């Protein structure tokens, strides 16, 4: 079997290339049904329905964003209402400064809700994906350069309880995997 990376170092896992998005979809279904847990499929673009084929649940990023949005709304409410109505009311043209002026605070409440939600969406997505990171063992594999062009890959990590060089290899072959490679860390 081909190897990538430094064979003296820790084994990351076993990977194979498949020819198309369709093949990747079916490969994912098979790996899922074989009961693997620590594995992933790699593609140049998100493939429709792949979460189902891999047996993944919906991303819970939306829950984080909801918290971010509520935080923004709270900050805006306090920032505006407390100084403008209680601590330091600005009387302009003799108009009131009481609680019933709250509609004037809506635009900034909205803006800060959106702002903090957007920050949470971007940075929360990166955090859930474990990014940014300097390197990853799979980048030791030269074939993998194609993942951002037209390559489709399946990789099963060595830490998976079902990982076994023989049976995993057989399974990757059965889904039509080419260039089956053992990938090591640095």
């Amino acid at each position, binding site marked *: 079997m081909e190897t990538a990376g430094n064979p003296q170092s820790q084994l990351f896992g076993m990977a194979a290339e498949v020819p198309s998005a369709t093949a990747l979809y079916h490969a994912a279904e098979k790996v899922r049904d074989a009961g693997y847990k620590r594995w992933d499929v790699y*593609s140049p673009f998100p493939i429709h329905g792949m979460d189902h*084929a891999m047996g993944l649940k919906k991303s819970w990023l939306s829950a984080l964003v909801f918290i971010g949005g509520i935080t923004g709304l709270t900050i805006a409410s306090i920032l505006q209402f407390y100084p403008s109505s209680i601590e330091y009311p*600005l009387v302009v043209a003799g108009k009131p400064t009481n609680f019933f002026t709250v509609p004037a605070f809506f*635009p900034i409440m909205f803006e800060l809700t959106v702002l903090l939600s957007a920050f949470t969406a*971007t940075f929360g*997505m990166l955090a859930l994906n474990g990014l*940014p990171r300097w390197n990853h063992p799979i980048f030791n594999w030269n074939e993998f350069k194609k993942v951002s062009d037209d390559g489709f890959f399946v990789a099963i990590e060595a830490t998976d309880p079902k990982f076994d060089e023989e049976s995993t290899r057989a399974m990757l072959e059965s889904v039509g995997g080419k260039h089956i490679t053992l990938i090591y860390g640095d």
Partner: protein
Amino acid sequence: MADAFMQSHEAAAERIKRAPLVTNNRPMKWITDHVASCTEKSAPTWWWIAFTISASLAMVSFFCIAYLISTGVGVWGLNHPVGWAWDITNFVFWIGIGHAGTLISAILFLTRQKWRTSINRAAEAMTLFAVVCAGIFPAVHVGRIWMVWFLAPVPNSNAIWQNFRSPLLWDVFAVSTYFTVSVLFWYTGLVPDLATLRDRAKNKLRKFFYGIAALGWRGGNRQWKHYEMAYLILAGLSTPLVLSVHSVVSFDFATSVIPGWHTTIFPPYFVAGAIFGGFAMVLTIMLPARAIFGLHDLITDDHVDKMCKIILLTGSIVGYAYAMEFFIAWYGGNMFEQYAFINRATGPYWWAYWSMIFCNVVAPQLFWFRFFRRHVLWVFVVCMFVNAGMWFERFVIIVTSLHRDFLPSSWNMFYPTWVDIWTFVGTFGIFLALFLLFIRWLPMICIFEVKAVLPEADPHHGHDEHHHEPAAAVKGAAH
């Protein structure tokens, strides 16, 4: 049941088959090579010429701003009662242009308009650069720019606190939020393509910078899952945001008591106008870029056609708003309001008003005809009219409303000075210089999204033609 539904669904899909989004059956590798190579080949001569001109023009703008700051706002033609003129006109003009980028990236994404994929990247870049140009004007028009921090609610010992009930402060929050969210949205969209550039990088410098910028993206489905959710949420957030930003910009006017500004139609009218002007600017920069880089298979004539239709639609909404303003001025029975509108059309600024009507309402009507939507030169000419027309619109709203207010003794004309003119002309240099740098350093078409709309990107592709029966059986077994 499900199978019967799928079959009728497929039959229906067959009947309404659309023109391909990428023509000539280009494979994925072609798309990667073609888009990424625009950043990899050494810069062509035309690029250096264009960049030199734009950058020089940008320097003119910077010089004018330095002169303004070192001398004072008196170097502009502002007077009493025209206290806002080209500065705010230019601000609204540029911020409006930005809105088309967000519309393409967010609203068309939520409505599943797949044709947006080949134009969204450049349109979003245009948004950012337009907002950069827009931001200059309110910042420098405050006069003493070293006190610009007064805009922000910073606790201080000077007893200065912002009036949060003022639309001008809403504007500060709206525009800065808009810029920040646009940057986040743009960068999120760029990450997978930066990974493409990283993987193709040949020299050390590119490997280093694209490697850092791609943040270690691997393209695993466990990453795509969160990524797609983040993108969906950002699109969902940007959609109301873009509508709110220009509504808030219009509140700067609508909440005042100046005749011609104090109207409730302003928010939707400004939003439609922003999208209208923005699409014209997208086409103005995309048509030359497409021609120069030979991207006709990605940005097809169908794309141009669709954008022309949006210009026609929003242009007609704007035309309706112009008419409705007049109607309400008459119907409202307020003599100051009535005078303001009669003065717009027949007063000393009649030429600006009628230029606006011609450019924004009359010229886009050509797009009713397929011939004009499909003819690149005509499209370009109409877009230039719209660009000019949208500037005139803001000029008309701001200057004609201010120059004759309630008290005839304070009436005055506005004349721009050379500083007014060159600061504005120079912002085109800033905008174009940034755009030229963008097309050299970043993929101007969203590579991964274009691949995702190819027929072979669909995991069920190929079943229909070759082995429908087994595929159906597999599907049945899997569910």
